[in-house]
């Protein structure tokens, strides 16, 4: 089998064929492929000038939009790899990522609040210094490092190889049949790897990318689809809940769409009911995959006539592994149940600078008679009638509105805010913190303290004061008992 083309080569190829076609359509400005590639070459020149003679480690400290996308390709062109800032996260958390990544170069802009960038050379996104880079420098093994919630309060950096990104990009463009006629949404924050699908899927195939930046547009996304005439929509399923609440899932609002693709949390049968009621002729892709296996590595193609057969679980089935990737269920009582273990070119190299966490989740495993590098996801799944369904987590990782979160991360923030003994559980997508205290608790003050270190979605919705946390035989906090307390709603004071 031919190795997949590198994403950078794909960008240059489409830019040569369609130089005047819009690459990125912003609010006030549109960048043609000619403009975009010029920006990539210029930034690559500035990045390479910052650290001559090595693979630069580049941190992108920019909002979603043409400049940040260009900085990603520019890093690859300069032979480096990048990480990105989540500008919605508190400054302390943004700084933690920069400190852990310890970049050689930071690409940023004057209107973005700066952090302490340490020893890094700072390059302005609109920089002209150094001149355009003519030819790509030799590639590094890695393409990017995405930092996700870690169970100790310290973010975990997932190291994705460039060959894995190339594999994923090729799959995305092929399976979604992307063409230059496509107008594609860019909704996910660029610090979440779902954005990789939009950015590489669109810009490596000559399509036009439409970042959704304005706050009003982010909360009326179907209106944005309608106004821009988008053909492809990509988001976490939670965004459908916003559309539904605003009664925006209609034939008129969705008129231009041909394909909606979802990832990041379970898609629900009634999400599909709403979509197909509005647009019976549209196609929906449900996909599954952790950041540790490059965005997604399964696909289920859903159409109105057939989707009901994939709705036998509480959430919609997530399909079969994509070509080249392996998905095995391990540790269950039968072959139809177990922890999802992933193999193939998209599996990450491990966690940035963290051998212990890497060893806990990544190891060689004997699968189908071959010893393979495997990621143990912690997701438990079940097979029924040929379909695979997500069942539960086997650890304390949860999704809140599509955001991945380790409950240990929240517990650590509680300790940082002065809580001596506390524990968090997620019930029906809401976080509940239980705090051991003899008397009342100043919840207002605690919230303010948590907001300094946690992103908004990680701050518990409810705080429960208990005289003593329930513990199991090993003296560990009994999460099941806490969950039962929330579900029974009996006698819990807030």
């Amino acid at each position, binding site marked *: 089998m031919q190795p997949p083309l590198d994403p950078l080569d794909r960008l240059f190829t489409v830019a040569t064929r369609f130089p005047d076609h819009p690459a990125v359509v912003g609010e006030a400005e549109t960048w043609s492929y000619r403009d975009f590639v010029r920006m990539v070459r210029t930034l690559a020149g500035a990045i390479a000038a910052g650290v001559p003679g090595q693979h630069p480690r580049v941190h992108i400290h920019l909002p979603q939009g043409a400049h940040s996308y260009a900085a990603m390709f520019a890093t690859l062109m300069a032979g480096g790899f990048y990480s990105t800032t989540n500008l919605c996260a508190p400054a302390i958390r943004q700084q933690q990522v920069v400190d852990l990544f310890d970049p050689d170069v930071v690409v940023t802009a004057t209107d973005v609040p700066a952090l302490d960038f340490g020893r890094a050379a700072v390059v302005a996104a609109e920089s002209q210094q150094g001149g355009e880079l003519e030819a790509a420098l030799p590639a590094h093994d890695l393409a990017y490092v995405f930092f996700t919630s870690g169970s100790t309060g310290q973010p975990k950096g997932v190291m994705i190889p460039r060959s894995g990104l190339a594999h994923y990009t090729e799959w995305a463009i092929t399976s979604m049949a992307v063409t230059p006629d496509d107008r594609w949404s860019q909704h996910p924050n660029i610090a979440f790897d779902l954005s990789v699908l939009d950015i590489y899927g669109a810009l490596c195939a000559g399509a036009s990318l439409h970042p959704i930046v*304005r*706050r*009003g*547009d*982010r*909360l*009326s996304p179907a*209106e*944005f689809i309608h*106004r821009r005439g988008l053909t492809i929509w990509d988001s976490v399923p*939670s965004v459908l*809940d*916003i559309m539904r*609440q*605003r009664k925006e899932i209609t034939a008129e609002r969705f008129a231009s769409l041909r394909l909606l693709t979802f990832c990041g949390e379970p898609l629900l049968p009634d999400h599909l009911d709403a979509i197909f009621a509005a647009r019976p002729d549209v196609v929906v892709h449900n996909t599954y995959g952790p950041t540790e296996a490059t965005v997604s590595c399964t696909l289920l193609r859903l159409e109105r006539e057939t989707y009901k057969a994939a709705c036998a679980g509480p959430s919609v089935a997530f399909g079969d592994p994509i070509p080249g990737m392996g998905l095995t269920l391990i540790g269950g009582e039968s072959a139809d149940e177990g922890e999802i273990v992933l193999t193939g070119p998209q599996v990450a190299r491990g966690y940035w600078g963290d051998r212990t966490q890497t060893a806990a989740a990544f190891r060689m495993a004997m699968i189908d008679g071959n010893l393979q590098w495997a990621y143990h996801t912690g997701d438990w799944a079940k097979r029924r009638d040929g379909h695979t369904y997500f069942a539960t987590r086997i650890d304390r990782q949860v999704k809140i*509105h599509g955001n991945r979160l380790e409950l240990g991360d929240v517990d650590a923030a509680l300790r940082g805010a002065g809580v001596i003994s506390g524990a968090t559980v997620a019930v029906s997508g809401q976080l509940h913190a239980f705090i051991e205290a003899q008397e009342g*608790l*100043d*919840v*207002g003050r605690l*919230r*303010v303290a948590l*907001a300094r270190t946690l992103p*908004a*979605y990680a*701050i518990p*919705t*409810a*705080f429960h004061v208990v005289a003593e946390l329930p513990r199991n035989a090993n003296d560990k906090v009994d999460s099941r008992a806490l969950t039962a307390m929330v579900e029974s709603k009996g006698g819990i004071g*807030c």
Partner: protein
Amino acid sequence: MLTIAELRDLVAEILAPDLERVGMSAKAITADTDLIKGGYVDSMAFIGLVTAVEEKLGCHIDLAAMEDEDFATISGIARAAGLAG
């Protein structure tokens, strides 16, 4: 037609039960408080608030027409609802 102060009171009344439950108060909310950045609501709860205001006033609030600067503020909601100039 509602004044900004009346809209503020209406928003405070809608939010009060949820805020009380998490140990917060609606008292400090002014016409220019960013309800999302100020931690009073998350984006889903903001959508719920906007829907509740629409039902109460029988109007349509065009979120896409709201500017980033006054988004999720009482004055922004008033403008988007056509209540204030």
